[in-house]
C-alpha cells in the first residue's frame, strides 16, 4: 500500500503540474485572478504529493521491501540504516525523484513566499516551473520509475554500490541538486519576464536571492563532492576534470556570473537582457549536467544509468527547453527596455568584465567536456581531454579574473575611479609581493610559477581586507569610529569580502597541494616503516574484521614525528560479498594544521605484504575551506534583507564619505 500510494502520488503530481503549466498562463492572458491563483495552490499541492512520494520510497528502502524493483536492486537488509536512507538517491530512479522533489520544493517556496510578486508574474513563473516539472515527471514515470514492483519478491537485495556506501552520499547529491535545481527559479523568472515582455523591479528583487541560494548549495555540493572523491577513491586527487565534475562546474561558473550581473540589475536596473540570457544559460547547463550524468553518455562512477531510452528522453527535454528558451529570448529580448547607463570604468563595468571572464571560462570547460563526446559520435575516435587542456585554457582565464577581482568592489557605481582604486590596493599589492618573496625563498628550486600564484592569492585576500578597511576608514578615522562603522556595515559587504577571500584561500591550497605534495609508494610488511615529509609511519600489521555487510582488512600505522608518537592511522580495504567481492578503499587521513597525511591501501601480496600509498599534502584543507568561506559569504549576503539601490557617487563627492554600498 505504501509503494502503490507513493506511485499514485507521483502520477497526481504529474496531473497537477500539467494543469499548473497551462491554466495560469491562460489566467495571466485574461487577467483573471482566480485562474492565476491556481498556480499557487497547485504548486503547493504538487509539493505535497511529491514529498509524499519521496517519503514513501524512503520508507520502502528502510523496511527493505524487496517487492519494489528499485529497493531490490539497490538495497540490502543488513545495510546500516543511514545507507538504507541515502541509498534512496544513490541510484538513478531515486536520484531523479529527489531531483523533482527539490524542483517541487522550490516551486512551493515561490508559491508560499511570493505574496509580494505581481500576480501575473507569479503565475507565469510557476507555470514555467511546472513545464520543467511535467517533463521530468514524464521522464521518471516513463523510463525510470522507482515504484515498479516484482510479483515474486526475492528474499534479499543486491546491495548498493560499495563506493557509494559512505556518509558523503548523504550530503553531496542533495546539496548539488539544490544548487542545480535552484537555478530553475531564475530560469522560470527569465522566461516569465520574456513572456510578459517587461522586467520590473520586483523581478530584480527576487532573482538575486534565489540565485544566491542555488549558488551557495552548488558551491558546497561541489566542494563536498571533491572532498568525497579525495578520501573515498583512494588516489588522493581532489579534482579530475572528469566530465561529471565539469558538468557541475559549468553551471557554477555561469551561476557565479549570473549572481554578479543580477547584482547590477537589482541595484542599477542595467544589464537586464544579459541577466536574462545568463539565467537561461545557467539552468540549461544544469540540465546539460543532468543529461551528461543520467543518460549514461559518460562512463564513470556517477553514471549508474545506462539505458538508451533514458538518454534520448533527456536529450529531448534538453533540446526543447534550451532550444525553446533561447528562441523565445531571440524573439522577445528586443522588447525589453534597456536599463541605466554606466561608464566603462565603474562597478558595473567591473562586473561586466567578471561576467565576460566567467562565461569564457565556462565556455572552455564546455568545449573540453563536449568536444571529445562530439568527436566520438562523429568519427568514433576516443580522445581524452584532461588536465593539460584545462590548465592551459581555464587556469589563465581564472588568474586574470583574480587579478581584476580586488578592483571591482573598490569602484563606485555608474562611474568609478580606477586610479584611486589602484592606489588603495597598493598596500595589498605590497603584501602580495612579500608573499611571493617569502614563498620563493622558502622553496627555492621548486616550480617557478607557484610563488607567483601564491602572491596572487594573497593579493586577492589582502584586497578583500583592504576593501573592508576602506569602508570602515580603519586607519583614517579614530579606532572607535572605525569599530562603530564596522558594526554598521551591511552584511552583504561582509559577504563579498568572505567570498572573495575564499577564492584566494582555495588558490593557496591548490597551489601548495599540487606543487609540494610528497608521496611514497611501496609494498610494506608488518614492522616496516616509511618516511614521508618528516613523518615516520610504521605498519603494525594486517587485521581482518567483519563489518555489517562487508569484510575488511585494516592496516594500522603508527605515526611518529620529531621522535614522538603522534597518532595511529587505520586505512582499510573493504570487500563486499553481496556485490561479488567488490572492494573499496577506506583511506586514513591525519590532519596536521591545514595539511594532511593520507594513506590508502592497494592489493595484498602473496608473501603477507600490502601495497601502500602514502601522501603528505600541505595546506590541502584550504582547497575546501575556500568554498566553505565562499558559501558562508553567500549566506551573509542572503541574510541581508535590505533593499538594494546602487547610489551613484556625485561627481564632486568627498573621499571620506564612501558609499556604504
Amino acid at each position: 500500500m505504501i509503494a502503490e500510494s507513493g506511485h499514485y502520488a507521483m502520477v497526481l503530481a504529474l496531473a497537477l503540474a500539467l494543469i499548473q503549466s497551462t491554466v495560469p498562463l491562460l489566467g495571466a492572458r485574461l487577467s483573471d485572478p482566480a485562474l492565476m491563483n491556481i498556480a499557487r495552490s497547485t504548486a503547493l499541492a504538487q509539493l505535497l504529493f511529491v514529498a509524499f512520494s519521496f517519503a514513501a520510497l524512503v520508507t520502502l528502502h528502510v523496511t527493505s521491501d524487496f517487492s519494489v524493483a528499485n529497493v531490490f536492486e539497490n538495497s540490502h537488509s543488513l545495510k546500516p540504516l543511514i545507507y538504507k536512507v541515502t541509498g534512496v538517491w544513490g541510484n538513478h530512479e531515486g536520484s531523479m525523484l529527489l531531483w523533482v522533489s527539490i524542483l517541487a520544493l522550490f516551486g512551493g517556496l515561490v508559491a508560499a513566499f511570493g505574496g509580494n510578486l505581481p500576480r501575473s508574474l507569479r503565475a507565469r513563473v510557476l507555470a514555467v516551473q511546472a513545464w520543467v516539472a511535467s517533463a521530468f515527471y514524464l521522464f521518471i514515470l516513463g523510463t525510470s520509475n522507482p515504484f515498479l514492483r516484482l510479483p515474486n519478491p526475492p528474499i534479499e537485495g543486491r546491495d548498493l554500490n560499495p563506493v557509494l556506501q559512505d556518509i558523503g552520499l548523504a550530503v553531496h547529491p542533495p546539496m548539488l541538486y539544490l544548487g542545480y535545481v535552484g537555478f530553475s527559479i531564475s530560469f522560470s523568472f527569465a522566461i516569465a519576464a520574456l513572456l510578459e515582455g517587461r522586467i520590473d523591479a520586483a523581478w530584480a528583487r527576487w532573482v538575486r536571492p534565489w540565485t544566491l541560494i542555488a549558488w551557495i548549495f552548488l558551491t558546497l555540493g561541489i566542494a563536498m563532492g571533491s572532498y568525497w572523491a579525495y578520501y573515498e577513491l583512494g588516489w588522493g586527487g581532489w579534482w579530475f576534470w572528469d566530465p561529471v565534475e565539469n558538468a557541475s562546474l559549468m553551471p557554477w561558473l555561469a551561476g557565479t556570473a549570473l549572481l554578479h550581473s543580477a547584482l547590477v540589475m537589482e541595484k542599477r536596473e542595467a544589464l537586464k537582457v544579459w541577466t536574462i540570457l545568463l539565467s537561461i544559460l545557467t539552468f540549461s547547463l544544469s540540465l546539460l549536467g543532468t543529461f551528461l550524468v543520467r543518460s549514461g553518455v559518460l562512463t564513470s562512477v556517477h553514471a549508474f544509468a545506462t539505458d538508451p531510452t533514458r538518454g534520448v528522453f533527456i536529450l529531448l527535454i534538453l533540446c526543447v527547453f534550451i532550444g525553446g528558451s533561447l528562441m523565445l529570448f531571440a524573439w522577445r529580448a528586443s522588447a525589453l527596455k534597456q536599463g541605466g547607463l554606466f561608464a566603462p570604468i565603474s562597478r558595473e563595468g567591473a562586473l561586466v568584465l567578471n561576467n565576460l571572464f566567467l562565461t569564457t571560462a565556462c565556455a572552455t570547460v564546455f568545449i573540453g567536456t563536449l568536444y571529445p563526446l562530439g568527436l566520438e559520435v562523429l568519427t568514433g575516435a576516443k580522445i581524452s581531454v584532461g588536465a593539460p587542456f584545462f590548465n592551459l585554457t581555464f587556469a589563465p582565464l581564472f588568474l586574470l579574473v583574480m587579478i581584476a577581482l580586488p578592483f571591482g568592489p573598490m569602484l563606485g557605481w555608474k562611474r568609478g575611479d580606477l586610479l584611486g582604486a589602484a592606489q588603495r590596493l597598493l598596500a595589498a599589492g605590497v603584501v602580495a609581493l612579500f608573499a611571493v618573496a617569502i614563498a620563493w625563498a622558502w622553496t627555492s628550486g621548486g616550480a617557478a610559477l607557484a610563488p607567483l600564484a601564491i602572491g596572487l592569492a594573497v593579493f586577492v585576500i589582502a584586497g578583500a581586507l583592504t576593501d573592508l578597511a576602506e569602508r570602515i576608514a580603519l586607519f583614517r578615522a579614530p579606532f572607535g569610529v572605525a569599530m562603530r562603522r564596522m558594526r554598521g556595515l551591511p552584511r552583504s559587504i561582509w559577504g563579498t569580502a568572505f567570498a572573495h577571500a575564499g577564492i584566494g584561500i582555495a588558490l593557496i591550497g591548490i597551489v601548495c597541494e599540487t606543487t609540494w605534495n610528497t608521496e611514497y609508494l611501496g609494498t610494506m610488511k608488518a614492522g616496516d616503516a616509511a618516511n614521508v615529509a618528516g613523518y615516520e609511519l610504521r605498519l603494525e600489521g594486517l587485521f581482518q574484521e567483519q563489518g555489517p555487510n562487508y569484510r575488511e582488512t585494516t592496516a594500522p600505522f603508527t605515526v611518529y614525528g620529531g621522535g614522538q608518537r603522534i597518532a595511529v592511522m587505520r586505512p582499510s580495504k573493504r570487500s563486499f560479498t553481496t556485490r561479488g567481492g567488490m572492494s573499496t578503499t577506506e583511506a586514513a587521513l591525519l590532519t596536521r594544521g591545514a595539511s594532511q597525511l593520507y594513506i590508502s591501501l592497494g592489493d595484498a601480496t602473496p608473501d603477507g605484504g600490502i601495497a601502500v600509498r602514502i601522501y603528505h599534502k600541505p595546506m590541502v584543507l584550504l582547497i575546501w575551506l575556500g568554498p566553505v568561506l565562499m558559501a558562508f559569504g553567500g549566506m551573509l549576503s542572503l541574510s541581508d534583507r535590505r533593499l538594494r539601490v546602487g547610489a551613484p557617487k556625485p561627481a564632486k563627492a568627498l573621499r571620506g564619505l564612501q558609499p556604504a554600498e
Partner: protein
Amino acid sequence: MTLWFVFALMTAAAMFAVLLPLGLRGRSHVAGTETAVYKDQLAEIDRDAAASLIGAAEAEAARVEISRRLLAASDRERGPPAQPSGRPRRAAAVLALLGLPALAIAVYLPLGSPRLPDFPLAARMAAPNEAQPVERLVAQVEQHLQEKPTDARGWSVLAPVLAKLGRYDDAVRAYRNAITYGGENADWHADLGEMLVAAAGGVITDEAKAEFDRALALDANETKAGYFRGAAAEQDGRKEDAAAIWRGMLDKAPPDAPWRSFVQAALARVGGAVAPALSDGTMAAAKDMSEGDRATMIRGMVERLATRLKQNGDDVDGWLRLVRAYVVMGDREKAKEAVADARQAVANDAERLKQLNEGLRNIGLDG
C-alpha cells in the same frame, strides 16, 4: 479496497487544490506591485541616511533615481483591470473534476500494481509460512548426505529438523540411517519410535513398539521409550498396565526430572493416583484442569469431524482420522462404531473400501 479509498482521498485533495482558487472568486488576493517595491526602497534610503550609512549627497542622488523609476511604474499600473468572464473558470473546473482523475487513472493503471501488497522484510520474516531459509539449509544438508551417506552425525542432526518441519517419513529414514552408520543407541531408537508414531498419526504401531523395546533393552531408564510403552498399553485399553508402567517411571525418577509433570498428567488421564506429596495440591488441580480443557477441545474437534462424516461419508481419509482419534483417546468402543459406519458409507465403492481396510490395518484395527 483500502488502497482505492486512499487513492480516492488523494485525488480529491488534488482536485480541491485546483478548485479552491476558483471558489474564492470575490476575494482579491493582495499581490505585490512595482510601485510598492520602489516605495520600500525610498524608505530604505531614508533609514540608511538617518543611520549615516550613506552620505547626504548619495542619498539624494539615489532618491532622484528611484523617484524616476517610481513615476514610470505608476504610469504603467494605471491601466483599467480587465473584467474576467466565467467561461474559462468553468473550463478549469471541468478540467479539475474530470480531466485530473481521468489522467491519473490512465497513467497509473498501466504502470502500477494495485493488487500487490507491501512486503516489508520484517513482516515476511515473522510470517509462519516463511520457512524458506530453513528449507534451503535442509536441502543443502540433504545434498551433502547424498554424497556422503555414511555421515551418521549428519543424519542425527538432520532428523530433528525434519521432524520439526513435519516430514516424519524422512525423519524415520534419517534415524534409521543414523543407527545403521552410527551404531546402536537407545536415544536414537526411542526417537525413531516416536517418529514412527508421528508418521502413523499418533497410533503406536507394532513397528514403533519394537523400537521402544529395543531402546529399553539398551538403556532400561530411557524415558521416552518408557513413556510410549505406557501409552501403547493405554491405546490397547490396558489402563492398569499403563498406570503401572508410568508409576514405576515416577518412582525411579529423580525428583527434579523435567518430564515428571508430563508423565503425572498421563497417569492422571488413565485414572492412576498422582504420586503423592511431590507437588502442591492446587498446582496439580490447575494442571488437571488445563489438561481437561485440552481434552474438551480435542473432543469438540473430533465430534465436528464425526458430524461432517455423517453428512458426507465419501472421505476415506476423514474416517481414518476419526478412527485414529478415538484410538488415541483410548475409546475403543467409539472407534469400533466409527469403523462400522465407515464401512457402511463406502460399501458401494470398491476402491474406497480397499483404501479404508488398508488404513485400518495400519492402525491395528482390522476385522
